[in-house]
C-alpha cells in the first residue's frame, strides 16, 4: 500500500492519485516503466507489462567497487555556492558519518524523497556507468598537480563533444574575449581567466592514468597552466572535486586551449595528438585546467558524486594561452569544462571550415549550431523537389491524416469487461447440470409415470402430537387452535395472503392444508392482503381447492380488501368496520408482514383474536420468538415438511395431499445440493492444501 504524503490515507499500490484527497502519489517504492508507465517492483530489470528494459544496459552496477575519490570544489557559476571551508567540513563529516560524500543541497533536493536503498543503489550504479564516458572529462586538480594518465575503458563516442572541442580549439581567445562584452558577469570571469592564462603558457603536466576512450585519446593533451601534474598512476580524481591543498591557478591565466583560438597572429602551434598509452604524461597534456579560476574566497559548492567519480581524461595538448588583454579579468574554469578543450589540430581545421560567430554569447566560436527561431520567417517560395516517398511512409501519412480528420472526442477509457474465468464457467456448468438432472429425475419419477419409479425417500413425521420437536409442537398448536374454533354463523376467519407469485410455489403448498382444514370446519374465509398480487394468488388457490372437493363451496370465501401501506394498512384492516374475525391466519415468506400482523393484532389488547401462521421454512426462526411461551402466535406451520405433516394429521387423500407428493422431490433436491456443497468443499480444500505445499 502507498500512503498519501498529504493525508496519510492508504492507497493501493500502483495508484497515481490519493483516493481521499486527490494528491498525486509519489513513486517511491517502484520503478516506472518509461514505455508504458506501469509501476514495477524495484528489483525488476524488465517491465512486467511490456517487457521494456527498466534499467539501461550501461546502468548495471559494476562488480568491483571503486574507491571513493576525493572531491574538489565545483568551480563554476552554474551551481549553488557553498563556502569552500564548509564544503571541506561537510566532506569530512560525510566521511565520518558515512553519508553520501559531497552531498550538495541542491543535488540532494533533486533526488526523489523516499528513494529506497535499492533505487539508490541502482542510481549509483547508473551513475557509475555513466561516469565511464564522463571519465574522460574529469578535470585534474586545479592546482596543477601532475596526474598520471591511465587507460580508460572505451566508451561511447560523443561526437558533439568531440566537435565542440575541435571548435573550441580552433577559435581564438581574442575572438571569444571580444564577444565577451555582451556576456554576463559569469562569462566575464571566464574571459579574464582565459586571458591571464594566455599570458603564461602552462607547462605540460602529466595527467593521472585513467581509462581513456579512443576518441578522447585521439584528442591529445590539453595545454596546462603552471600547475604541476599529479603523480601517476593513481585513480583519477573527479572532474570537480574538493582539493583543499591544491594551489589555485592565478586568476586570469588563459589556458592553452583558449590560447589556440586566439587571433591567427597569436595562435600557437597546433599540438600533436596524445598517444594512446598514457602512462607518461605527454607534453602539453595537463589535468583539466579551468578556463578561468575562481578565487579561493568564491563560494562554490562541492561536486556531486557522479562528477566526483569521473576519471580524468587524456586531454589534447591545449593551445598556448592567448595574450592577456588588459583590463579583463579571467574567471576560473571548472575542470570539467577544461576537459572540453578541443584539440588544436582539429580546432584549426574547424576554424577554416566553419563560420565564425560574430555576435551574442557565442561570439568567437566556430561550428556553432545555428539557432532556430521560435517564429520562423516564412520561406520565400522555392518549390521544393518532393523527396521520394516510400509506400510505408505514404501509408503512415495517410493514417495520420485520417486520424487527424476524425472529430475531436474525448475518449473515455473503457472499463475492462471481464467475463467469468474458465474454472468459473466449469463450476457453473457443473452445478447447473447437477441441478437440472435432479429436476429431470424428479419429473420422471413423479407419481403416475410408471416408467421410472423410485420408492419414497422420505416420509412426514408420524405422531406429531407426542414429538418433542419444536416445529411439530408449533404445528400441533395450529391444528388445535383451528380445531377448537367456535364458528358461529356470520363469524369469519381472516386470511392474510402476504406473498406473491415468487413465493407461491412453496407457500401455496403450506396454505392449502390449512385452508382445507378451515373450509372443512365450515369457516368463512375473508381474504385480505397488503400486496396487490396477494389477492390474485389467493383467488387462484382457493378456486382450485374449492373445485377439488365437492364439500367446499365458493361462498365460503370472499376477496375482501387490498390495503397498501404495510403496517399501517394492516392496522386499518384490523379496525375496519365489521365483525372482528375469530382467527387470523397469516401466510407469508417475509418477516415484515408477519411482524406487522402480530404487532398490530396485539395492539388491540385483550380483544385481539388468536393468530396462527403458515410460513416458509426459511422464516421458521423468525417466527419462533412469537411462538415461545405465552406467545402471540398460537401456532405455525413452516415449510413443505410441516405442510406434509399437517396433511397426514388431516388424513387427506393422496390427490389432495399436494405437499406430500412433493416431499420426495424436495428430498432429492436437498440431497443433490448437499452433495454439490461437499464436492466443492473437498475440491477447494485439497487445492488449498496443494497450494500451500507448493
Amino acid at each position, binding site marked *: 500500500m502507498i500512503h498519501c504524503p498529504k493525508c496519510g490515507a492508504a492507497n493501493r499500490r500502483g495508484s497515481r492519485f490519493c483516493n481521499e484527497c486527490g494528491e498525486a502519489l509519489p513513486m517511491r517504492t517502484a520503478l516506472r516503466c518509461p514505455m508504458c508507465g506501469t509501476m514495477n517492483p524495484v528489483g525488476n530489470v524488465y517491465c512486467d507489462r511490456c517487457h521494456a528494459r527498466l534499467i539501461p544496459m550501461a546502468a548495471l552496477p559494476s562488480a568491483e567497487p571503486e574507491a571513493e575519490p576525493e572531491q574538489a570544489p565545483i568551480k563554476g557559476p552554474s551551481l549553488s555556492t557553498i563556502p569552500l571551508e564548509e564544503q571541506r567540513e561537510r566532506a569530512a563529516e560525510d566521511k565520518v558519518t558515512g553519508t553520501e560524500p559531497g552531498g550538495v543541497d541542491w543535488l540532494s533536493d533533486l533526488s526523489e524523497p523516499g528513494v529506497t536503498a535499492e533505487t539508490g543503489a541502482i542510481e549509483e550504479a547508473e551513475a557509475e556507468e555513466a561516469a565511464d564516458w564522463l571519465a574522460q572529462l574529469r578535470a585534474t586538480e586545479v592546482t596543477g598537480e601532475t596526474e598520471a594518465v591511465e587507460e580508460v575503458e572505451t566508451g561511447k563516442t560523443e561526437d558533439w563533444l568531440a566537435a565542440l572541442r575541435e571548435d573550441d580549439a580552433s577559435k581564438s581567445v581574442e575572438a571569444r574575449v571580444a564577444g565577451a562584452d555582451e556576456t554576463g558577469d559569469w562569462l566575464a570571469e571566464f574571459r579574464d581567466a582565459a586571458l591571464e592564462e594566455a599570458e603564461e603558457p602552462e607547462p605540460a603536466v602529466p595527467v593521472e592514468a585513467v581509462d581513456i576512450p579512443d576518441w578522447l585519446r585521439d584528442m591529445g593533451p590539453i595545454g596546462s597552466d603552471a600547475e604541476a601534474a599529479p603523480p601517476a598512476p593513481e585513480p583519477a580524481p573527479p572532474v570537480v572535486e574538493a582539493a583543499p591543498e591544491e594551489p589555485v591557478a592565478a586568476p586570469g591565466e588563459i589556458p592553452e586551449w583558449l590560447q589556440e583560438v586566439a587571433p591567427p597572429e597569436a595562435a600557437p602551434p597546433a599540438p600533436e595528438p596524445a598517444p594512446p598509452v598514457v602512462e607518461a604524461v605527454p607534453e602539453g597534456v595537463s589535468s583539466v585546467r579551468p578556463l578561468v579560476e575562481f578565487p579561493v574566497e568564491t563560494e562554490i559548492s562541492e561536486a556531486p558524486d557522479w562528477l566526483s567519480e569521473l576519471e580524468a581524461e587524456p586531454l589534447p595538448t591545449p593551445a598556448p594561452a592567448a595574450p592577456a588583454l588588459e583590463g579583463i579579468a579571467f574567471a576560473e574554469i571548472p575542470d570539467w569544462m577544461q576537459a572540453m578543450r578541443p584539440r588544436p589540430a582539429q580546432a584549426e581545421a574547424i576554424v577554416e571550415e566553419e563560420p565564425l560567430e560574430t555576435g551574442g554569447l557565442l561570439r568567437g566560436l566556430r561550428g556553432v549550431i545555428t539557432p532556430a527561431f521560435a517564429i520562423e520567417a516564412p520561406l520565400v517560395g522555392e518549390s521544393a523537389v518532393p523527396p521520394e516517398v516510400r509506400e510505408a511512409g505514404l501509408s503512415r501519412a495517410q493514417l495520420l491524416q485520417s486520424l487527424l480528420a476524425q472529430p475531436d472526442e474525448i475518449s473515455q477509457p473503457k472499463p475492462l469487461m471481464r467475463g467469468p474465468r474458465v474454472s468459473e464457467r466449469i463450476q457453473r456448468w457443473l*452445478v447447473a447440470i447437477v441441478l437440472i438432472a435432479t429436476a429431470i429425475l424428479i419429473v420422471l419419477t413423479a407419481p403416475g409415470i410408471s416408467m421410472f419409479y423410485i420408492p419414497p425417500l422420505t416420509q412426514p413425521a408420524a405422531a406429531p402430537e407426542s414429538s418433542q420437536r419444536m416445529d411439530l409442537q408449533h404445528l400441533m398448536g395450529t391444528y388445535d387452535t383451528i380445531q377448537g374454533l367456535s364458528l358461529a354463523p356470520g363469524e369469519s376467519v381472516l386470511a392474510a395472503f402476504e406473498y406473491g407469485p415468487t413465493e407461491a410455489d412453496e407457500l401455496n403448498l403450506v396454505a392449502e392444508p390449512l385452508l382445507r382444514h378451515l373450509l372443512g370446519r365450515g369457516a368463512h374465509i375473508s381474504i385480505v392482503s397488503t400486496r396487490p398480487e396477494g389477492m390474485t394468488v389467493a383467488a387462484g388457490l382457493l378456486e382450485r381447492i374449492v373445485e377439488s372437493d365437492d364439500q367446499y363451496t365458493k361462498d365460503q370465501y370472499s376477496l375482501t380488501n387490498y390495503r397498501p*401501506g404495510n403496517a399501517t394498512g394492516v392496522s386499518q384492516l384490523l379496525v375496519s368496520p365489521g365483525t372482528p374475525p375469530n382467527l387470523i391466519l397469516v401466510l407469508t415468506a417475509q418477516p415484515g408482514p408477519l411482524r406487522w400482523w402480530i404487532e398490530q393484532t396485539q395492539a388491540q389488547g385483550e380483544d385481539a383474536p388468536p393468530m396462527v401462521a403458515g410460513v416458509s421454512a426459511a422464516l421458521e426462526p423468525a417466527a419462533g420468538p412469537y411462538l415461545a411461551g405465552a406467545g402471540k402466535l398460537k401456532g405455525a406451520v413452516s415449510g*413443505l415438511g410441516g405442510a406434509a405433516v399437517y396433511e397426514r394429521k388431516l388424513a387427506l387423500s393422496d390427490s389432495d395431499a399436494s405437499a406430500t407428493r412433493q416431499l420426495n422431490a424436495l428430498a432429492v433436491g436437498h440431497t443433490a445440493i448437499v452433495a454439490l456443497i461437499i464436492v466443492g468443499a473437498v475440491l477447494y480444500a485439497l487445492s488449498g492444501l496443494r497450494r500451500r505445499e507448493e
Partner: protein
Amino acid sequence: MSSLIKRWIPTLLFTVLPGLVVLAGYLLPSNQTLVDFRHELVEWAVIVAAFAFLLGVFNILRVHGRQVFRRRQGWFYSLVLLFAMVAAATPPTTQAILEVVRPDSPVHKTLEDATSTLFNYTISPLGASLAALLVFTLTLAAFRLLRTRRSAGTVFFLLVVALVLLGTTPLIGLEWLADVRDWIVNVPGMAGMRGLLLGVALGTIITALRVFLTIERPYSES
C-alpha cells in the same frame, strides 16, 4: 432569520411535528383526536407512495427510452421492457377507467380475463422462474465458498447448511437428522437471529431519533 425561515421552520413543520403527532397517537391510543390525526397522516403517506409509483414509471420510461433512442448496448431489451410495461398496464388501467366511465360495458369481462391471463401465464411463471434461479446462485455460492474464505468458521457454516438441508426432509433411516435440524434452528439459530434483530432494532431507533431530532437531514444539505 433567513436560515430560520428557509431551513428550520419547514423542518419543524414537516418533520418534527408530524413525527410527534404519529408517535403520540401510538402512545396515547385513548386520545381519539390524535389517533384520527395519525390515521390521516398515514393515509396521506400511502397516497404519496402511490403517486411515487408514477415517478417510478416515468423513470423507467426515461432510462430505457434513452437507451432505445440512442441505440446503446442492450437497447433491444429496453424496447422489450417498455413494450411489456405498456402491454401489462393496458388491460387493468382500461378496466379501471371503464368502471368509472362505463360501468356496464361488456368489455369488463374481457379485460378481466386478459389481466388474469397476463398474471397467471406470464407474471407468475416469470416470478417463479426468477425465484428458482436463487437455488442455482445460492448453491454455486456455497460450492465455491471455501475458495474465497478459508477458515474454520466457513467449514462450520457449510456443515450447518448440510445438516439443516438434510434434516428438513430426512431420508428414511436418517430421521434423527430432523431432531438435529430442529435444535440448530430453534436454539443457536433463533438466538443469533434474536441478537441480530435486537441490534437492528437499536440501530433503527437511533437512526429514527436522529431524523426526528433533525440531526440527520437526508432531504437537505447538512
